[in-house]
């Protein structure tokens, strides 16, 4: 009995903070549904003699997403998502780390064809590991020695991976040169 009461009290304390992100997610689902529906208008319906044309599934999923999004919004308005497991990890996000890791991925995507796989992935590793070190609260992350170690580690993972895929498996990955080694 006592256990139930503490549970309710906790929920109430967390409720105001927890709801707007849920509303955002629900609205996102709804908007994707609407966007897909708009896209579905342009898909012709000629069905041949099947009776079901290429626009059937797009309409079905658009409507399903709109219904799901609207329903979720209703859930948020009436107390929040149902049967929601508490998300693992901290209650608040460490956004600087998220930015580091995002930068790692986006920089890699932007540069990989220019600077090659090994350099691109080393850079990606460096930025990501720096962000993750900050998220883990490692104060030494900023030291030049740690940067040097991270660059070296990144290169030591990227280079063999590159050689394994290009030389052994003959899969094309972008290189700085055409040698297949760099």
């Amino acid at each position, binding site marked *: 009995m006592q256990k139930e009461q503490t549970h309710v009290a906790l929920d109430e304390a967390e409720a105001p903070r927890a709801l707007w992100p849920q509303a955002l997610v629900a609205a996102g689902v709804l908007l994707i549904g609407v966007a897909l529906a708009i896209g579905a208008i342009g898909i012709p319906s000629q069905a041949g003699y099947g009776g079901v044309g290429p626009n059937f599934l797009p309409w079905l999923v658009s409507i399903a997403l709109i219904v799901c999004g609207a329903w979720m919004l209703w859930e948020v308005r009436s107390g929040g998502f149902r049967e929601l497991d508490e998300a693992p990890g901290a209650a608040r996000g460490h956004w600087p780390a998220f930015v580091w890791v995002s930068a790692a991925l986006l920089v890699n995507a932007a540069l990989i064809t220019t600077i090659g796989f090994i350099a691109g992935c080393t850079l990606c590793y460096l930025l990501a590991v720096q962000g993750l070190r900050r998220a883990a609260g490692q104060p030494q992350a900023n030291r030049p020695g740690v940067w040097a170690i991270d660059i070296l580690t990144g290169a030591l993972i990227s280079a063999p991976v590159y050689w394994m*895929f290009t030389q052994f498996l003959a899969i094309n990955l972008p290189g700085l040169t055409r040698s297949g080694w760099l």
Partner: protein
Amino acid sequence: MDILQALLSGFAAAITPVNLLWCLVGCALGTAVGVLPGIGPAVAVAMLLPITGKVDITASMIFFSGIYYGAMYGGSTTSILLNTPGETASMVTAMEGNKMAKSGRAGAALATAAVGSFVAGTIATVIVTLFAPFVAEFAVRLGPPEYFLLMLLAFTTVSAVLGKSTLRGMAALSAGLALGCIGLDQISGQGRYTGGIPELLDGIEIVLVAVGLFAVAEVLYAALYEGRVHESQNTLSRVHMSRRDWRRSWPAWLRGTAIGTPFGCIPAGGTEIPTFLSYAAEKRLVKDPADRAEFGTAGAIEGVAGPEAANNATVTAALIPLLTLGIPTSNTTAILLGAFQNYGIQPGPQLFTTSAALVWALIASLYVGNVMLLVLNLPMVGLWVKLLRIPKPQLFAGILIFATVGAYGMRQSAFDLFLLYAIGVVGVAMRRFDFPTAPVVVGMILGPLAEAQLRNAIAIGEGSPMVFLQRPMSLVLLLIVVTVLVLPRVAGLLARRRAVAAA
């Protein structure tokens, strides 16, 4: 006799030195990804899908199934030794396994998990060997309406039954179906949702979605929310089972196998239900009061042996619907289906006739793989445990390099890397708000197939959806789908009424 003959020729193909090597590498890699937090078998296979462009199909399928299998063995190591289980499949193992490890019996827990996985995996492989050809023979008689309804059943169970919230499961499934729509429509050749971007005409690669949702999302999530989560690790004791441990384990292995196998066979996926059922059964069936007292306290070995066996039996038996019907029931089998598709092969009843050599080599490699994994996991477990010492920042940053290989290697397009990031961000939100991911992957892979079957079915019915009611088999399947949707709700409602009445 035919089966034996076919199996023997399968062995002949599977134990060539090259294929044995692929099997060994797959099993070792699978164990490693099972042990390491952050990547599972689905994403490991997905990242390596680009090899389908170069490696012979038999070898790559043996390799991928080694990963699929090995991850199950490796996963139990992590769930016993770390105090935070990674995936749902090993959650149940973690309950008792962790307690055993805390009371100094980690070795016995690891041993019963490994031997149990071997026993269950082997028995389930025998069942695959014996039954898959019959299921295939039967499946030849199914027409588009039946196939469509089987796929609908898979969608229903994956999205509405397995997850907690049907609503979020349906949203995830719809998102997966929408992703599957992108590109050229299979039947009419009509472009859908391409937005004028030429890269999208070919559709979105399953690699991107799987690697984005699982690997990239995992890394972003770890940076955002889990930086300061510190896991404590239990100490490893000698991997050894006493006579009493053996006596308590073997009935649990067999029961676990008996519970897990049927769950794998039906297109309903998921290891959660069979592992929980096995755990509940073991807890109820234990007779000795001393053994019973160990449940939830010092850790009961039955509680590790049963669920581990159930887990492996389910995973192995899940190959039956995959190979004979072409219906995947989990993330990893969905990606295996994607691998077949990369070779232009559609798993289904014809697979046993058109690609008999491949299928039997694959099945034979499962036997070989199980033996390899037992050897890799029992004496060498100490080696795998060392992987847990890799610090999280370096591990997760390293995962991104492999994610890049998988995503870029498939189509050599930097555009895909941007898409990968976007999918990763969506994955973070899904994880944070408890959306299931399996419906996305299964919906994306199975969606276009289900759509084609639906359109063929309606064409058979000359434009009338009544075709689903007129054929006895499809009517039965339709009723099953409805039952699966309705039954849990009615049961829940009744339970609530009873609770109210009791109060």
